């Protein structure tokens, strides 16, 4: 496929990510890019991939870009129908990074692949059938430029996604991917190129570990997006125990992306139809005790009012006051309040009302209050997915507030 690339291929890959160039590069239809894995996990992943793409089933040539940290992968070699391509990985992170997108695209372009699959950390847990359906949707039907998984997670997992990333993405871009920041993605070559062009801005600034937002890119380009059931997946968990640092990193990147795409999401668009096959989340056998989270919110309420009052309007502050007085058993943050809190923090991020690090730090206790409220609701028998969908619908309804305050931030806001 001839394609005039906007990505500067003469620029070195981050940290020299691609290994020494091959004299005769292998060509393939699909490039599967694996992020750094421990040697046993890599072997398990490769075995799963080999079973996903048996040689007798025509799927074209499958190239697998595997990190060369494992001693066994040192040069281009074959494994069943797969051709392995070693590359030198950058640092291992929780999510796919700018460096991953750039390296994947450069390898795909070098080997004339038509599409890319990027599989994130702990990809050995992925269902082989899911990987195959990802590949099929990209190669056979070519119905979408971005294919995202819909994981089946327990209600006490992926809470940042449920509280902020999913509802805000759905409200702003009128797209319904349940995991906008999925750790596994399928990309058409043009989508990979677009993401690589964005990634290059970050890697050129020495920020190869920056987080990209593929759904926002797809929405900006108006390219189709598809979601596929991925079944249960063990998501990688951070090694750092500091929630505040991680939330600051992810929410900060998300808010910055929203700020950069203001002209895109302020346009009215039809909402992507709901997936009727959307499954409910499996119930957790045991839910955690939320008392420490509620206590954390109460400590924050007594100490951070001065900072919150710079960001939130009086109505939201009143709502937080009521919340701080609620007993632990009846602790409920209503969806309208959480929606306004998130929107006001996005606005304060844009307006730089206070230092952005401080702003995102002040969001953490509020997020914990939402998480505690969500878990208590689930404990009371409310289906978790139902609550998350209701929350997302509230974000959609209140989008006018965000747009209005984005355009006229100085207007009176009770």
């Amino acid at each position, binding site marked *: 496929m001839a394609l005039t690339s906007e990505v500067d291929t003469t620029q070195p890959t981050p940290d020299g990510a691609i290994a020494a160039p091959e004299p005769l590069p292998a060509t393939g239809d699909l490039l599967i890019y694996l992020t750094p894995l421990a040697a046993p996990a890599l072997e398990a992943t490769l075995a799963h991939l080999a079973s996903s793409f048996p040689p007798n089933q025509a799927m074209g040539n499958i190239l697998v870009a595997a990190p060369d940290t494992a001693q066994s992968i040192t040069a281009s070699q074959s494994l069943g129908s797969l051709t392995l391509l070693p590359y030198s990985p950058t640092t291992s992170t*929780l999510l796919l990074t700018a460096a991953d997108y750039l390296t994947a695209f450069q390898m795909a372009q070098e080997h004339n692949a038509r599409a890319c699959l990027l599989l994130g950390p702990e990809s050995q847990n992925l269902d082989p059938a899911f990987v195959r359906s990802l590949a099929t949707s990209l190669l056979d039907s070519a119905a979408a430029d971005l294919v995202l998984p819909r994981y089946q997670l327990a209600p006490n997992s*992926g809470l940042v996604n449920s509280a902020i990333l999913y509802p805000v993405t759905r409200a702003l871009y009128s797209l319904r991917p349940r995991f906008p920041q999925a750790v596994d993605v399928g990309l058409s070559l043009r989508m990979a190129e677009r993401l690589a062009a964005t990634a290059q801005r970050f890697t050129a600034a020495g920020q190869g570990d920056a987080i990209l937002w593929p759904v926002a890119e797809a929405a900006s380009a108006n390219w189709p997006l598809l979601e596929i059931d991925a079944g249960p997946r063990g998501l990688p*968990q951070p090694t750092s125990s500091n929630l*505040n640092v991680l939330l600051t990193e992810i929410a900060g990147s998300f808010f910055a992306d929203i700020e950069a795409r203001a002209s895109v999401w302020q346009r009215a668009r039809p909402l992507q139809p709901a997936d009727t096959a959307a499954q409910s989340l499996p119930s957790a056998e*045991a839910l955690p005790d939320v008392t420490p989270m509620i206590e954390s919110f109460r400590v924050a309420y007594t100490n951070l009012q001065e900072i919150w009052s710079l960001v939130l309007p009086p109505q939201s502050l009143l709502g937080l006051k009521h919340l701080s007085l609620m007993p632990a058993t009846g602790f409920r943050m209503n969806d309208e309040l959480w929606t306004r809190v998130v929107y006001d923090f996005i606005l304060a991020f844009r307006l*730089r009302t206070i230092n952005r690090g401080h702003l995102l730090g002040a969001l953490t206790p509020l997020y914990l209050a939402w998480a505690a409220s969500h878990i208590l609701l689930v404990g009371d028998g409310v289906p978790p997915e139902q609550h998350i969908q209701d929350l997302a619908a509230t974000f959609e309804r209140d989008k006018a507030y965000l747009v209005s305050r984005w355009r006229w931030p100085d207007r009176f806001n009770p």
Partner: protein
Amino acid sequence: MWEQIQSALSQSTHRVLVQLASFLPGLLAMLVAVLMLTAVGALAAWLLRRILVAVRFDERLSRSRVFAGNSDIQNWSLSHSPSVLLARVVFWGCVVLGTVIGISTFDASFSNNSEISKLLLPYLSRGVSAILLLLAGNLVARFLSRSVLIGAVNAHLQYARMLSEGVKWLVLVLTAAMVLDHLQIGGIVVDLAFGILFGGIVLTLSLAIGLGSRDLVSRSIEKTSERAPDTVAAHPQQSEESGKPPIPIDLLRHF
């Protein structure tokens, strides 16, 4: 006797009035220079702002390769947008330039051996830098105070506000001592007072943290010895006082 007193009084009054008359034009010239440059600065800032908005400077900057991912620069910009920041830099640059020109005009209006010139000018320039020092100290105090407050709240410390106030006053006391020292007011009294106050605040904070954190530290040590390395602890301080068993650490996954 009375005539001598009268004569001494009239002579000193005359001398002061003459000196004041020679002092006023210089002061007026300084004020005019400051006001004019301030007006020029305001105009230049307004024009620059209009031009930057017209060329969509903020948008271009946010899309540029250098600044796109540079969150540090974005975090440290004090104004609402880079164009506002630039306009403010131009405005305040003009104000500072006006002040420098004014002081120089003030200086030029006196003869070199004038007592006022010798005393007042160095003090005036020290006064300006002392004001800048005070502003910078206040900014640093506010920034550090908020950083400590948010960090302490997220670490679930009950005395977060006290800690933050302590840090704020430490920086403010340090700033005040530096300003007074810069203005050469107080001499050794300021040094002594600063030492006593600073030491007192540090001691108070140390005692408060030490006494208040005994339980936290012991729980933290216990948790560290038990914690699995690859998961986010839901809340390490799940306490024995709540009477509930510790939370299994993999029950809550934020990511």
